[in-house]
């Protein structure tokens, strides 16, 4: 293991990491929004919307993520939708992550009991107040562990985007290996970087979980 080589490659890898974090950050924000919207539609009681959301979730979860990426990057341009590598990556990652977030949030909503409905009604809360101040805080707490898992998986799955040539962490490493043949050093480094990212993110998740759990702690 040649550590001077790793130090030499570090600036390149850091710019790759920046791209990884940018793509996955955008995808995380978008997929949470779509997930919340989808989960709301999924439990809205409007049958066509429910079937559409369910079909979307089933299809995305039932097909390989790599093929979805290729379909979006190579397939959509011939249908007249042309995106850059970066935006194709963001779209592919968002499409994949939203399917999982919809399920997470739906389970969160399902965990809020029917009794809350009656309680809000008896207190005379408006429908929107009930949704925002009663259902949302409870559903968010219930959905947090599984959606944190999905967030971590989103960061990890950004590595697949090297297959369409997005210059992120894995791409940089593989690219350098093609020139310098230092496979062990490069893979050691990116594994450490990915592990640090995953640990940081799941640590953050635990902190948020504890913080949100405070009203229920100590009983």
């Amino acid at each position, binding site marked *: 293991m040649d550590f001077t080589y790793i130090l030499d490659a570090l600036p390149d890898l850091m710019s790759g990491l920046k791209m990884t974090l940018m793509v996955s950050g955008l995808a995380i924000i978008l997929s949470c929004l779509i997930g919340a919207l989808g989960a709301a539609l999924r439990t809205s009681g409007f049958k066509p919307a429910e079937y559409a959301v369910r079909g979307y979730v089933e299809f995305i979860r039932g097909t390989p993520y790599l093929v979805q990426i290729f379909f979006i990057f190579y397939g959509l341009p011939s249908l007249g939708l042309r995106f850059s590598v970066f935006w194709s990556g963001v779209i592919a990652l968002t499409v994949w992550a939203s399917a999982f977030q919809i399920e997470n949030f739906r389970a969160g909503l399902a965990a809020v009991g029917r009794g809350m409905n009656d309680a809000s009604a008896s207190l005379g809360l408006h429908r929107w107040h009930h949704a925002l101040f009663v259902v949302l805080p409870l559903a968010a707490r219930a959905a947090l562990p599984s959606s944190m898992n999905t967030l971590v998986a989103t960061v*990890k799955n950004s590595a697949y985007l090297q297959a369409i040539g997005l210059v992120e962490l894995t791409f940089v490493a593989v690219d350098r290996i093609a020139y310098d043949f230092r496979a062990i050093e490069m893979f050691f480094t990116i594994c450490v970087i990915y592990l640090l990212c995953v640990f940081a993110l799941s640590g953050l998740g635990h902190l948020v979980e504890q913080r949100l759990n405070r009203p229920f702690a100590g009983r």
Partner: protein
Amino acid sequence: MLLLEFKSFLLDGLAHTLLLSLVMILGGTFFAILFAGGLSLKSKWLSRPVYMLVECLRDIPLMVTVLLVYFVLPNAGISLNPFWSSALSVSVWGGANGAHIIRAGLASVPSGQREAALAFGLRGWKGLLLVVIPQAMPVILPPYVSLVTGLVQASSLGAVIGVNELLRSAQILIEQTTISRGGSPAYLIYGTILIVYFVLCWAISVLGARLERYFARPYQRQPSVQAKQVEGQTLPAAMLDVKA
């Protein structure tokens, strides 16, 4: 039509995908049992390293694991062809995930069952196989079936390092027809193989549901046990009974 014209080429790819998936499922199950055994070793000095390995495999992106095995193993003097290289890396990854599923399943069986088995003289492997595992199956199977579909989907990663499976065949077909005829048929071909993979995974989950029903048979007359298997999370009791 393009798809019919190159039917045998694509079917050949599908056959390779099926073979690769089968190898991955068998290999993944093998490593899952191996890791689950390693995790439950009594000596901390032995089980800790296994735990670290399993966690690393779960936390490193699968794409990186696949490339790592493909690029790093030759440095150690082991050169595998793309097929076995991807089979090994995905199996190890599946094993790491499967180990946790198996361990959670075994832990869900009350320890009294094990003791009862001992009381009947079923020691060691016999007690595990005849008493504990049949009861753990309803807990193990649902996540294991989705792991199996995950493994089938992961077989498409072979295309990245050059295994001639379905996705790689599609890539080759698209390249060739784009060069020879102009105009990319990518959306048609990728769309088709998306559907093929979907049908494959759907068939597996249907088979899995059958298997689940088979193992759940002994419990079907007890509503209390069935209630435990309802999917989806429930809030911890402390969160729901907020007292004024």
